[in-house]
């Protein structure tokens, strides 16, 4: 049969390892004579991540709670509560939908709580938050830049073709290569931008030693690589917008901004949502950039969850590594499925 080989492969290399990984996350790995030994320890690996010795690594360090974090929490709780409530009162209710939204709401609240309590003075981000930072800000930045560039390329300017081919380039460069390229560029002493840093008075700052600067550099590298993807997809979507509708709006008297808001944006919404979803799925897996660019440093400041798992594995903590990997799996699945249900579905539904 045709499908069978593909299905078997996936079974063998996805489902089987998936289940095995789950099991591994529940054991402790130790090297004995002649081989290794796996001892079942239940949820201990997970507990260590969240509140045990690995808490600083995964969740982060908590800062002393203050008024701001408290009020942010309350506001978020109220907002999510209201959202859930209006869903339950609305027309299209279903058990699966309700449970799904509950999970999404709970995750969102946990996220807000985490953000409020690790960001800022006195707190440190763990790999969970760092990964989310990369995902949210990275994808948002790539989307905005991609949209802007695509829009510019739809204007009747000379050289449009040239720009399109050119902007496509970064997508083809190996991520490891990109990491080194940017490391070279960001060198404050001998890099090409050294004169700029000196002029700005930042010449002595070693970005690699500051957690936030290091994270920003990672995002810069990530953005450089992925903007072309957004650019291509959004350009195609923009060019697919019905010219008749735009002209009708022009005749109706709408300004360019209004036309974008009322005609173009709704037209590209489904494609844009799908593109963002694809990018989200990939963004959670980022590992080459933080590994090569900053080696996860300073300390663990730029470690994504995949990198975190790799480091655990290198120290032969198979159980811990699997636990982190599974957490990544949960988080990315919840995020992606939520995004799909709430955003992509709605964007798709609005079109005739």
């Amino acid at each position, binding site marked *: 049969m045709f499908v069978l080989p593909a299905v078997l492969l996936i079974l063998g290399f996805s489902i089987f390892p998936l289940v095995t990984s789950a099991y591994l996350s529940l054991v402790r790995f130790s090297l004995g004579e002649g081989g290794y030994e796996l001892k079942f320890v239940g949820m201990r690996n997970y507990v260590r991540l969240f509140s045990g010795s690995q808490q600083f690594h995964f969740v982060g360090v908590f800062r002393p709670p203050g008024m701001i974090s408290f009020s942010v929490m309350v506001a978020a709780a109220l907002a999510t509560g209201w959202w859930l409530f209006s869903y339950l009162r609305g027309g299209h209710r279903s058990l699966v939908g309700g449970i799904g939204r509950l999970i999404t709401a709970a995750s969102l609240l946990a996220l807000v709580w985490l953000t409020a309590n690790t960001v800022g003075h006195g707190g440190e981000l763990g790999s969970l938050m760092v990964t989310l930072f990369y995902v949210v800000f990275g994808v948002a930045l790539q989307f905005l830049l991609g949209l802007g560039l695509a829009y510019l390329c739809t204007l009747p300017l000379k050289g449009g073709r040239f720009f399109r081919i050119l902007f496509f380039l970064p997508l083809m460069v190996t991520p490891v290569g990109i990491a080194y390229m940017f490391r070279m560029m960001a060198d404050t002493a001998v890099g090409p931008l050294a004169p700029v840093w000196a002029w700005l008075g930042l010449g002595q700052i070693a970005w690699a030693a500051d957690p936030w600067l290091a994270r920003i550099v990672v995002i810069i590298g990530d953005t450089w690589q992925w903007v072309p993807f957004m650019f291509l997809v959004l350009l195609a979507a923009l060019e697919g917008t019905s010219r*008749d509708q735009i002209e009708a709006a022009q005749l109706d008297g709408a*300004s360019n901004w209004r036309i974008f808001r*009322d005609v173009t944006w709704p037209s590209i919404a489904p494609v844009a949502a799908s593109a963002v979803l694809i990018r989200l799925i990939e963004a959670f897996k980022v590992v080459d950039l933080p590994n090569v660019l900053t080696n996860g440093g300073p300390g663990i400041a730029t470690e994504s969850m995949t990198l975190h798992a790799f480091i655990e594995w290198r120290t032969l903590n198979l159980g811990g590594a699997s636990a982190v990997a599974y957490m990544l799996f949960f988080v990315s699945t919840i995020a992606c499925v939520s995004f799909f249900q709430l955003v992509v579905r709605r964007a798709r539904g609005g079109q005739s």
Partner: protein
Amino acid sequence: MNHMERQAPRPSHFASSTVPHSKSVSLRNVSKTFGDTRVLHDLSLDVHAGEFLVLLGESGCGKTTALRIIAGLESASEGSIYVGENDVTQQLPRDRDVAMVFQSYALYPHKTVFENIAYPLIVRKRAKAEIDAAVRDVAASVHLEPQLDRYPRQLSGGQRQRVALARAIVRRPAAFLMDEPLSNLDAKLRGHMRAELKHMQHELGVTTIYVTHDQIEAMTLAHRVALIDKGVLQQLDVPARIYSDPANLFVAGFIGSPPMNFLRGTLANNRFEAEGLTLVADVNHHGEAVLGVRPEDCMLVTAADGEFRGHIYSVELIGDHSLVTLNVGEQQIVVKVSNMFAGEIGMEVGLRANRERVYFFDQRSGLRIRQC
């Protein structure tokens, strides 16, 4: 045709949708070039206020381009456009006070019918109450009230077309521009909508410029028809005269179904001669010419009684009439006869034509040679 002219209507007092400020529209020496191709040649037209003018021609003749130039969606390479007294040649579409109904309707798919119709007013920042009243008023006049909360994808083709119309009406523009609005409808609906459009234009009294390739639409809807071929205006006249007094070969052959018969021959000494026929022609012209006569202006008689003769090539029963194709020399002529006609293929018959309905055209230039 019984009546010779249709009057442009006086503005009626139809609810509050009357457009008191309907204006004239003029094209003065407009030319348009796309790259190397000249699409419009020195086109000049004056559309009177309140008039229904149809731009008629085949695909690619430039009529849609002319419409889009009036709308401001394309710029004229040469010439100027006037709406009323204003030179709008350099103005953006939204400043010209014209509304357009697109062939594809161009409805906004994610807005309800109400929001679609209201859009021109929303963009002009009118008061909410005013918008509401205006939209409901217009919706009532096109019978769309029950559909106001629906989305375009839930409507039929005819309903969508009415939404597009309503959106144009609600602005009370100086002129309507319509780009083949009926071509996406099926034949039966098209006939119905033709009547609706005619009625609506009469009630509203808005200057309307209507583009189509369908001569039936042109003849039934227009106060005047502008026939365009390859970017050049062929004739601008009321439908009756377009039909009965064509200016050239193109006009004569375009209007009329079945189309006018053309016979090639020579004019000399007040006589038209072609193989198989000779006809007295009351014209002062010498040279190669074309004789034109409509199928319905011919009559079949016995071979002896005819002005000229031919052999029957085929007989087609249409329903209420039949069409007989005759071989006259090397050429063919089609004649409309009663559905009781009982001729056989190969039979020799004679032809008589209504003298006043025989036209002569110069073969080279295509221009009509008029009787003295």
